[in-house]
């Protein structure tokens, strides 16, 4: 049976778990799937604001778990991206408010109603991560091509395997072609060789990601950005399609700057 509940995790903080959950969730929904994204970073609610749904929240994950509301009441449906629903984190509680068994029960309930469930894990290897992992069939590990992030990714991969969730799949985020060309950044082959798990996708360093979260609009809604295309391809790979990886471009290079100056005139 193919996995449908994925935990998006990393070990190290700030490498792009929430970004990945938001845009991959939106990409899957835009391709016609029913998708639930869960913010499991209790106390540090982020997924709602990245998706632009922060003003539509009534109930949250902890309310559902404690029985204060029904699951359907807490799910926020995205009006722009059909098929995408968000289960927000509680902002006023702490990670201890959710136990692994409770997360598992919740994911099993969502599994009935959705084609995909993506759980945005908090950073770290403690309780919050354990709970986020509990209900998942398998893990998607996000890293950047930086030494500390790769080392932490390796640790998380070990923990996921020890929890018998199989071998995780890898997304390498914030790839910078200028640095890679100069030999100043690990490239995708290096990272895959080091971590020895399946590569699911690469995401470029892209200002479109920053402006997308500024606006609260998934980057995949903008047909032009390279990161949007990267997320769409990852969605297709999850669906079992064999899609080539994106060609990274060095878009801050002189010629590209010149080119974009000319084309914007």
């Amino acid at each position, binding site marked *: 049976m193919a996995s449908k509940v994925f935990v998006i995790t990393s070990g190290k903080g700030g490498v792009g778990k929430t970004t990945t959950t938001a845009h991959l969730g939106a990409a899957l929904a835009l391709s016609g799937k029913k998708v639930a994204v869960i913010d499991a970073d209790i106390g540090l609610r982020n997924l709602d604001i990245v998706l632009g749904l922060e003003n539509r929240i009534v109930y949250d994950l902890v309310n559902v778990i404690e029985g204060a509301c029904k699951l359907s009441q807490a799910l926020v449906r995205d009006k722009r991206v059909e098929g995408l629903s968000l289960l927000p984190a509680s902002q006023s509680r702490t990670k201890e408010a959710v136990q692994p068994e409770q997360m598992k029960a919740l994911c099993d309930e969502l599994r009935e109603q959705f084609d995909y469930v993506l759980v945005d894990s908090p950073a770290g290897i403690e309780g919050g991560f354990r709970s986020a992992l509990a209900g998942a069939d398998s893990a998607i590990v996000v890293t950047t091509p930086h*030494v500390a992030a790769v080392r932490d990714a*390796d640790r998380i991969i070990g923990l996921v*395997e020890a929890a018998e969730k199989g071998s995780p799949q890898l997304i390498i985020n914030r790839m910078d072609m200028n640095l890679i060309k100069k*030999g100043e950044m690990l490239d995708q082959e*290096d990272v895959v060789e080091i971590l020895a798990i399946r590569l699911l996708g690469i995401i470029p360093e892209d200002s479109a990601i920053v402006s997308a979260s500024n606006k609260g609009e998934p980057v995949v809604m903008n047909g032009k950005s390279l990161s949007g295309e990267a997320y769409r391809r990852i969605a297709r790979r999850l669906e079992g399609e064999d899609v080539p990886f994106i060609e990274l471009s060095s878009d801050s290079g002189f010629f590209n700057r010149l080119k974009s100056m000319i084309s914007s005139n």
Partner: protein
Amino acid sequence: MAWFFNSKKTSKESAKKRLQLVLMHDRASINPQLLDKLKEELLQVIEKYVEIDTSGMEISLDGDKRTVALVANIPIKGTR
């Protein structure tokens, strides 16, 4: 010109080498100090039985995919 650029090690090469080494230790939960101690004791045991060439020996962690092995290459001079 290529030799000129190649003569200087790029930072990504250092990153890769350092990561590969540290992950070997992480995965085996063995730190370099522990490995040294292990080497020392291992040699004491082996030396009870055979005479070894300590200058030519090599004991280290080696890895393939996500598994780690303790690899020892210990040249023997003769039996005791």
